[in-house]
């Protein structure tokens, strides 16, 4: 069933109420999630949500209103209300808002999906999670948890410029975690929670049950492993951790709304200065970061963003030089850029905003084994445990679940509570080896905006090596 008519009615009502531009999205969303703990299902939820959000531009200001009612009278009322809210913004108006040109498009898009995750019997899903947690318990975990999440989203987008786009996006993912509880501390090992714009085949590939015993054994071993030593050393990061490093120290930094100060009070700004776009050295020549919503199956994939801009790949960093940003039509116009395409919202009730799509690191020439073999003295770390970065996206500190010392080209002892810290560009400039073993990691919990929104982002990444990194920061 199409909802173009309701979205169109909202747009027309906003125009009639004085808006000079308006767009509306109808979204019908189904989500399902399950968690299991220690051999029993702990929580099973199935949620359904449907509604319409309309955005209106009056003078220099935006207004947004959302309702859970898909009837045309409610849609028209929402359009009028959005225009009224925009008009109220004029009390504290800014420079005239413009939009980069966008060719009107009529199109449909659907993500690839081999096995519809909502069609898999709940009993099978429950059995899988229960078996995974039991396998971890039997291998020595004090506490074992497993979970999955499914998002099934239909959206219909209409703009006053003539866009009519509908999309069906199916996403899912999951993982298993084993905890070992020691005297005064807790250690954990996880299968890196993996998420993608894919079907249940992704969960099958994770092999939750098969991986659970290893995770439990490693969690127990961590309790008695030596603490990660403090100092400066060569750091090798696994792909999972590098994905988060990209997310935090590159992805957020290249969000144009942050660069323009639109997120200054909450999410923060960026150390990047637009006057240096095209010339600033962000990292070593090995560093090639792309913004690619067309990446197959990654969690930040789509056909069109929530302003109707068609998905396209572009570079954010080329050979270490900063060359691109994540932008929306209004922020791009302010910055004088000729592209947008990175605006999304987490539901019909939220205003679309600049969001990461798939921000990833292009692969390098080596393998992880080659990188380790080429390292005389260093530390390998993987799977994120804690993450923190300052409001300009410069000063970061990450903790990983597991570390290993590297001595004379070989992986040595397991290390407990590994952490590393640094300053973004200095860190990226120290990257001297990069693997070709790319995986598109998914981050389903990226928080941004007020009211808060949860974004789904993808990060293709492979293991890499960095020199002279400070490790072993402990409380």
């Amino acid at each position, binding site marked *: 069933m199409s909802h173009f008519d309701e979205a169109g009615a909202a747009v027309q009502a906003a125009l009639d109420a004085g808006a000079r531009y308006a767009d509306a999205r109808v979204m019908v969303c189904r989500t399902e999630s399950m*968690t299991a703990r220690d051999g*029993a*299902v*702990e*929580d*099973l*939820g*199935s949620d*359904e*949500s*449907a509604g319409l959000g309309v955005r209106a531009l009056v003078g220099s*200001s*935006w*207004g*947004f*209103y*959302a*309702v*859970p009612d898909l009837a045309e009278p409610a849609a028209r009322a929402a359009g009028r209300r959005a225009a009224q*809210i*925009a008009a*109220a*913004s004029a*009390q*504290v108006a*800014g*420079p005239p808002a413009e939009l980069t040109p966008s060719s009107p498009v009529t199109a449909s898009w659907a993500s690839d999906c081999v096995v519809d995750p909502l069609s898999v019997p*709940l*009993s099978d899903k*429950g059995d899988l999670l229960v078996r995974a947690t039991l396998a971890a318990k039997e291998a020595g975990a004090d*506490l074992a948890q497993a*979970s999955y999440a499914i998002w099934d989203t239909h959206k219909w987008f209409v703009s006053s410029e003539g866009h009519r786009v509908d999309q069906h996006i199916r996403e899912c993912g999951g993982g298993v975690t084993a905890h070992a*509880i020691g005297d*005064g501390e*807790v250690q954990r090992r996880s299968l890196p929670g993996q998420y993608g714009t894919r079907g249940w085949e992704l969960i099958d590939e994770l092999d939750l049950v098969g991986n659970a015993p290893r995770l439990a054994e490693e969690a127990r071993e961590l309790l008695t492993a030596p603490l990660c030593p403090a100092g400066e050393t060569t750091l090798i990061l696994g792909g999972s951790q590098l994905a988060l490093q990209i997310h935090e120290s590159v992805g957020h930094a290249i969000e144009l709304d942050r660069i*323009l*100060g*639109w997120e200054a*009070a*909450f999410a923060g700004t960026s150390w990047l200065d637009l006057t240096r776009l095209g010339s600033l050295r962000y990292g070593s020549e090995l560093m090639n970061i792309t913004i690619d919503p067309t990446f197959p199956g990654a969690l930040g994939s789509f056909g069109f963003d929530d302003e109707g801009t068609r998905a396209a790949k572009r570079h954010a960093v080329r050979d270490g030089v900063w060359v691109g940003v994540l932008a929306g039509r209004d922020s791009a116009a302010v910055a004088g850029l000729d592209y947008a395409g990175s605006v999304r919202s987490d539901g019909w*009730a939220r205003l679309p905003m600049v969001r990461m799509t798939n921000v990833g690191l292009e692969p390098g020439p080596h393998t992880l084994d080659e990188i380790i073999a080429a390292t005389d003295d260093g530390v390998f770390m993987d799977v994120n*445990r*804690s993450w923190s970065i*300052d*409001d300009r996206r*410069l*000063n970061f*500190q990450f*903790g990983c679940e597991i570390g290993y010392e590297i001595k004379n080209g070989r992986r040595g002892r397991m290390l407990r*509570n590994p*952490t590393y*810290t*640094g*300053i973004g560009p200095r860190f990226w400039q120290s990257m001297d080896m990069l693997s070709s073993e790319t995986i598109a990691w998914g981050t389903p919990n990226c928080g941004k905006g*007020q*009211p808060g929104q949860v974004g789904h982002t993808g990060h293709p990444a492979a293991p890499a090596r960095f020199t002279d990194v*400070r490790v072993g*920061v*402990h*409380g």
Partner: protein
Amino acid sequence: MSAELQLAAKVVELVRELAGRSAEAEVTVRHHALALTRFANSAIHQNVAEATTGVRLRLHLDGRTASGSSTLTSLDGLRSLVGRTIAAARVTPPDPAWAGLTRPAALRISAAHPGSGEHSGLAFGFDEATARATPAERAARVRAFVDAAGGLETAGYCRTAYVSAAFANTAGQAVEGRTAEAAMDAIARDRGADGVARLASSRLADLDGAELGARAAAKARAAVAPAELPPGHYEVVLEPTAVADLLQNFAVFGFNGKSFVQKQSFAELGKEQFDPSVTIVDDPLGSRGEPAPGLPFDDEGTPARSLVLVRDGVTQAVAHDRTSAAQAGVESTGHAAPASRSWGPYPSHPRLEAVPAPAGTSTGASAAVAESARPLVARMRRGLLVTDLWYTRVLDPKTLVVTGLTRNGVWLVEDGEIVRPVSNLRFTQSYPQALAPGGVLGIGAESVLLPSSWDDARYAAPALHLASWKITGNASG
């Protein structure tokens, strides 16, 4: 009876019709109207509103449990919700941890509860004006903030929210309540230095944009041209905005009933884990002086009440829903939430008790210092005045070692006087250790009500003077 309670009763009726009388069901209906006026570069750039009614059903059938929610509140929508939740419950594995339903119990609201107005027949509390606030009213506060900043660049938000909610279950519990909330949180910027002002209230009228704007601007101006300090252990005065972060992490990880049951929390009941000056209370119903606009019941229908978490330094309690309470062998404390079974129940309205302080001398740059922190700063020999903590993340849940950064203003204080602004610092610090016996040198005389940046939580926080805070990095790395 409110529209929300009628909806909840309807869903209970549908469960009985479609699943039989043996089914145990609990239904929460929540109408949420949220409006937020957001500004940046001293102009409103996002002005949004939404009004949603959500229905959440949790069903326990033949030993199995499932939950579902929907925003589709037509009869067809409700039937669909009940039907798919029954279907889910029938095919899930057994749920041995099911703790049963809340029996009928009266709410514990008092005359002071801000949400007790119309439905309780009490004369005051719920503020209709806040619930019905217009975009123009929010914009007027933004205008006042921007004007009071005296030409500095400003950014932030003014928001109002209204919740009308009801709960019903098949055991006969049926309760309703409503709340309204307003908050303003914004910065002023001067040559790269930020100053913040933040306040929550159950009344929009309590938010004075001009006062907040002047405070943020004073902080920003005093923070210009910061110097860098080396890592190390520093004595600190944390302003209420920073103390709210401590309360949040204590609540979510320490006083979380599930974490406690799983032995992942530092909390040990009956043990003196905090300085004797520390008392922390979760107070969802608020008081006349400190309105904290929570609902008077939780998502399992358990009446909300004050819960003393720490008294005079001794850990007294953690928050429970019915599941964690059963596992701990105690009663629910009324902290069930949609995710509490998986994430764990935690206090959402914690208050660190203020302590009447002896009069202190004023500091030289007092305009930059929150009023409640001034006597504490005056007594600091050498240390840091910290306005805000940012991006805090737990390194180990058991010891509650947290890393994060300062934000929105840090100053070096010597002999009770502000000496100079300091650039932002990274810390890695065990929060319980920082507040351990002997660690607390002073607590401010006034608790300030502060909004959460992410959810509906509220923090009532005074300033806090601590003997040691571990700084592990600075702007250089």
